[in-house]
Every structure is written in structure tokens, then in C-alpha cells.
């Protein structure tokens, strides 16, 4: 059974957004990390990069395969989680705690297109 946290927004490609004021922390869900297996590399954008909802912003790679990261929201990257550079496996330890990028949201109405915890739970069939 995967961990799902109330109050977060979820995408169909298994990213989450945790909103704090005008900012959103974006990462992959516990369900996604479990499906991927051992994460060995996270390809992240750089601070000040623009990201767009529905567009790739990097990749999470397990031993076996690379999975594109699709940004659930648009905005500007204000921080990347550099700890993942040295220890990508942190995502396996706690995917929600170890977000990948912090985005200054340019359009908070985009959040309405995402799922809440209950809808995501149903989406992954749990």
C-alpha cells in the first residue's frame, strides 16, 4: 500500500505538488518510487529555468530505466533539491519529503487540473 498525503495535488504521471503560498514543491509520489525501484540518478533543471505544466523538466532513473518527469505546474524553478545529486536513493526512503524542485507558481489555477489525495488513491487503484 503506497503512502498518500492529504492536502497535496497529484498528477496522472505520478508527480505531486505541495503548495506553500506562491510556491510549489514538486516531486514523485511514493507509488512512483515503488514502481521504479532503486533510484540511481535524478536529472534536474537549474534554478531560474522556466517549467511548463505538461512539459518534461528532467528524469528519474532507476537501475533499469529512465522515466521522464512531467511538471504538473508552470513557473520558475527557485530551488532544486541538491541532496538528490549525492543521494538519489533518498527518493526511495521518503518520496514526499524529498521533493525535486521548488517552483514559483505562475498560474495557481492550474492546480485545479490535478487530483486530490482521494482521487489519486482511486487512480492508482488502492
Amino acid at each position, binding site marked *: 500500500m503506497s503512502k498518500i498525503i492529504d492536502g497535496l495535488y497529484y498528477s496522472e504521471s505520478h508527480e505531486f505538488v505541495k503548495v506553500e503560498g506562491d510556491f510549489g514543491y514538486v516531486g514523485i509520489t511514493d507509488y512512483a518510487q515503488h514502481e521504479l525501484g532503486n533510484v*540511481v*540518478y535524478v536529472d534536474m533543471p537549474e534554478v531560474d529555468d522556466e517549467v511548463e505544466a505538461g512539459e518534461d523538466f528532467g528524469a528519474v532513473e*532507476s*537501475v533499469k530505466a529512465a522515466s521522464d518527469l512531467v511538471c504538473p505546474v508552470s513557473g520558475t524553478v527557485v530551488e532544486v533539491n541538491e541532496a538528490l545529486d549525492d543521494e538519489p536513493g533518498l527518493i526511495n526512503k521518503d518520496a514526499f519529503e524529498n521533493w525535486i524542485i521548488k517552483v514559483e507558481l505562475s498560474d495557481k489555477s492550474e492546480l485545479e487540473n490535478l487530483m486530490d489525495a482521494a482521487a489519486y488513491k482511486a487512480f492508482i487503484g488502492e
Partner: protein
Amino acid sequence: MSENKFTCLHDKHVALGALMSPFGGFDMPIQYKGIVEEHNAVRNAVGVFDVSHMGEVHVTGPEAQKFVNYIFTNDITKMEIGDIQYGMMLYPNGGTVDDLLVYTMGENDYFLVINAANIDKDVAWINEQAANFDVKVENQSESYGQIAVQGPEAEKTMKAVLNLDCTDLTFYTFKCVDYNGDNIIVSRTGYTGEDGFEVYASHKTIQDMWDMLMDAGVQPCGLGCRDTLRFEVGLPLYGDELTADITPIMAGFGFFVKLDKEDFIGKDVCAQQKAEGAPKKLVGLELHDKAIPRHGYEVCNENEEPVGYVTTGYRGISVDKSIAVALVDAAYGKLGTPLKVHIRKKFFDATVVKKKFHDKSYKK
């Protein structure tokens, strides 16, 4: 579901909760606990693989030796009964039909072990070539199950768990054993770069052995780590490092192509490539960054012009680097050559290195 075939251990993999995926026409376990844990179990202790998907072809008859030597690159006349050779079957243009093991069972009696994905193609090819020889070719792939017990503790495990004393087997030799009334084949071979054994037996015996190994707590290992293990020690996978377009000379396996023996299919092209150099070369690549090169990614020269592609790539497990094997134009094949790998939107610097990233630990 799919039309993939099941091995005799399929139900057991599912019961163990393995992640299953199609490979070579079979629904196979990719991992049980995790690729890294399973990889390390084999490098440091012992693990067991279900390799029942592999194909077995029995060639017998008055001209069996002459025939097998004609379709195989290595020189089987050098073998005694109980010996095994690795080599390739080639097309006349030198491209690879498959890589395989040949077991010498007796005089004019050979047991060929071929890749699962190639069983139909290989059997058709072998039969086609056999038309002019007095031989009998039997595809026995459905009759045999196969497990591989691999790792530094493999010999101890074979004795303690399966009651098979293998101390008399040297690397690349085998013996036939009566195992509770089943005539089985045990060889000191594998595909991990570690010491280890492969057992060919009836489905029932293989199922019993698997259960014994599980009861003894031996780590079941999936095809995921089988690939990372073989890749790190420079062993090729058919479809990646060897294909119908890649000769063994390009791939750097000229050692297994005996040009001084009688004629064999593909000899002329191999001889020419050995003498004049092959147009392409399989090389190792070490990236200067953590980005991971994957199969099919483009390899470029310093001007970002394509010069080849990645055949296999990983974030190494025993080697903590992003590493790959790539097929490149021969001009870029020298050790130390700077190249770039095109990964998603960026080009990453890499250097040509030896394609053996981790040393093998075989018992000679």
C-alpha cells in the same frame, strides 16, 4: 494477458512477488527484492537465476563434429568430452546469428545452448545448414528447465543445498549426473563474471531444486541484475552487443573466432576484418557526469556529429560511475578518445575506456 511462454518456475516467481516482464518470448522475473540487492548477492555471496528460457539443441550423427564446426566460430575439435566452448554462429556476411555454448557430450554428440529470443530463428538456421550433412538436429528447449547458481559461495551452496559436489569441475567443463533418477547436466559456467554453475534438468527436478534453494535462503535473482552483472564484466547480450549487423570482430570477440580451422560460415569476412580492421568497433565509455547512457542513445564526436550508439549503459553497481558499451565508427575506437553521449536534450562528455568495468572472478 500476453502470449509469452512460461518457464517451469513461473508460478514460483509470481508467488515470490517478482516483478514480471516479457523477455525473449517468455514472461520472466526482472527482480524480486531489487536489482542492487540481487546484484550484490551474486558479487559477494550467492544467488540463483531461473534461466529455463534458454534454448537447447542436440546435434548428433556421423558428421556432427564436422557440421557444428562449420556453423560455429570456435574450434570444437579442440574439445574433449566434458568440455564446453563459447562462440558464435554467423551469417555469410559475418553478422551474428547468435552466441552460444557448445557442450561436448560424446563423439559426434553436441549440446548447443542458445538464446531464448533466438530459438526459432536458430533452429531454422541450423536445420537449413544441416541439409548437406549426415546429422540429426533436435530442439529440446521445451524439455529442459535450467537454473544458474552464481557467486563466490556457489560451490558451497551446490554441495550444501543440492548435494552436488562440483569441486571436480573446472571453468567451462560439465558432468552428467544421475540425480534421483533424472539425468542432469551440471556445468561450471554462467553469465555474471563470478564463479558459478548451471544445471539443466527436467522441469520437475528444476522445480525441486528451486524450492530447496529458496528454503535454504538463497537469494532469487532476476534478469535485471543478470544484465547489470554481465555488462560490468564485458559479456555481450545478443540484440545489444551482437546482432545480425555486428560481427564478433567488431565486438572485440575475435578470440572466439578461430581463423586457423577449417572453413566455417562467416570466416572470410572475419578474416578480412581481422586483417584490415573492422569498420565499427565496440568500446567502453565512461561518462564524466552522473547522467546515465541507455541502449540506443546517440554517441557523437566532439563536434556533436553522430558516430555510433550505446548498446548497453548503466549507472554501475559494482563500479560507482555512469558507464556504457557503444558501437562506434572505428576511427573513434581508441582508448582515451573523447566522445559525447546525447542524453535527452544535452550532450555529456565521455571517454573511451576498456569495456570490462569490473574484473571477473572465475575459478580456473
